[in-house]
């Protein structure tokens, strides 16, 4: 029988949860790298035994750990992230120029096809690539140098490149998202980049429809429909059907269109999930009711999913990298909270169960569907 492995990054270590395909009983392993902030743990689509971990600390800096045996053991690999050339400056919070400084790796995205190739999204925002399994890293500097970089500004969480989407149909096309700069796309494997923010409107910036400056929280693409992407922006849930050239709002009847993660059903490219959060200062669910909202129509029309989720006195957040889906026939949806719960649904969101309840604040959740 197939199985599922859930990779959880938290403020104080990583956890690995495993179940068989029924997803009824879970074994929790960890904490791994106890005491360190684990921004992201992600497995390779080429070989599920290859897992990368971003391990970071305000005291000791950045480490990248790699497992080649499905998380049984890890070894530190390369941790030098050096910007290409003279890094220059971006905008600081007060609008003054600020030197580019590496802080941490937010997101690791292993290649869809090459076992030893992996991308890293970092703060201050840049994209790095390794072709030797994380041993050494080179900046994909065409992104930072394409022209708008000096105008990028940090969001409240720092100026981070947090989302990397490799196009399922075109290996030369990659999408990234940066807070608070926006979404960007390359069509030549990373040499040249362009902002793809047309249609985004952000009242928090002087020019609402500026080319860059938007606080994009997450974008997601279904492999069967690569021209369509969904976006959870700071405010607004958005959709593009032309690879990011134009976006339109699909927030519809959501109770609030603020949130962080967005993800797509493994087998239904028009079924999407968000977690509405009250506002950009009150980072918790409305009225203390934790709800995932699902649209089966690719947006605009949404329904609340509440069965098994706390519907009173719940004031947690769900961060941008903390939702994922499995590929089993009945699609599983998973998300983690800043209160340390990891919730799972084995029926596409109709019902939920807490598979962990008392972890440190969850930063990221990824899922591997095992053969």
């Amino acid at each position, binding site marked *: 029988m197939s199985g599922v492995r859930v990779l959880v990054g938290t403020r104080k270590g990583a956890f690995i949860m495993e179940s068989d395909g029924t997803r009824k009983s879970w074994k929790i392993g960890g904490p791994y790298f106890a005491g*360190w902030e684990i921004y992201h743990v992600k497995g390779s689509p080429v070989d599920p035994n290859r897992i990368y971990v971003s391990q970071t*600390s*305000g*005291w000791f*800096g950045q480490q990248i750990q790699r497992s080649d045996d499905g998380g049984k053991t890890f070894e530190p690999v390369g941790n030098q992230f*050096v910007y290409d050339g003279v890094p220059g400056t971006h905008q600081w919070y007060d609008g003054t120029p600020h030197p580019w400084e590496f802080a941490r790796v937010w997101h690791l995205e292993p290649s869809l096809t090459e076992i030893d190739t992996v991308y890293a999204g970092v703060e201050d925002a840049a994209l790095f690539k390794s072709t030797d399994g994380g041993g050494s890293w080179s900046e994909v500097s065409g992104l930072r140098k394409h022209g708008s970089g000096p105008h990028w500004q940090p969001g409240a969480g720092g100026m981070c490149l947090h989302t990397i989407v490799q196009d399922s149909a075109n290996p030369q096309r990659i999408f990234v998202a940066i807070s608070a700069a926006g979404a960007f796309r390359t069509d030549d494997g990373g040499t040249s980049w362009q902002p793809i923010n047309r249609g985004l409107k952000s009242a928090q910036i002087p020019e609402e429809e500026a080319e860059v400056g938007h606080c994009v929280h997450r974008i997601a693409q279904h492999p069967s429909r690569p021209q369509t992407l969904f976006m959870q922006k700071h405010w607004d849930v958005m959709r593009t059907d032309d690879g990011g050239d134009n976006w339109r709002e699909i927030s519809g009847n959501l109770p609030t269109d603020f949130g962080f993660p967005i993800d797509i059903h493994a087998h239904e490219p028009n079924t999407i999930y968000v977690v509405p959060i009250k506002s950009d200062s009150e980072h918790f669910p409305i009225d203390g009711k934790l709800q995932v909202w699902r649209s089966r129509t690719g947006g605009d029309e949404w329904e609340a999913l509440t069965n098994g989720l706390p519907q009173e006195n719940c004031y947690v957040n769900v961060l941008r990298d903390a939702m994922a889906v499995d590929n089993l026939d009945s699609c599983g949806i998973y998300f983690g909270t800043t209160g340390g719960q990891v919730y799972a649904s084995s029926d596409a969101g109709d019902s939920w169960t807490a598979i962990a309840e008392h972890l440190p604040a969850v930063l990221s959740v990824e899922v591997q569907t095992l053969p």
Partner: protein
Amino acid sequence: MIRVVLPAHLKTLAKVDGEVRVNVDGSVTQSAVLDALEAQFPQLRGTMRDAITKKRRAFIRFFACGRDLSHEAIDAPLPQAVTDGSEPYLVVGAMAGG
């Protein structure tokens, strides 16, 4: 041999228990000790000081013989007691952040 005491997280990263002992050729300075430490345990590169600039990380301190050496010249000789191994060189994670 120079005795070095690492903070718990760096011991875990280096996969060692207790003190670490490193060989330093030539003058025993903070820079030479850290170079030797990083050569013996490459996974510690970047954890105590920037891997490129060699600047001490903000929340790392270096102590020896009851003194805070964090702001001493990195190429100044360490106390004789560290050089002869009677006292350890301490790498300390600052108490910060609760």
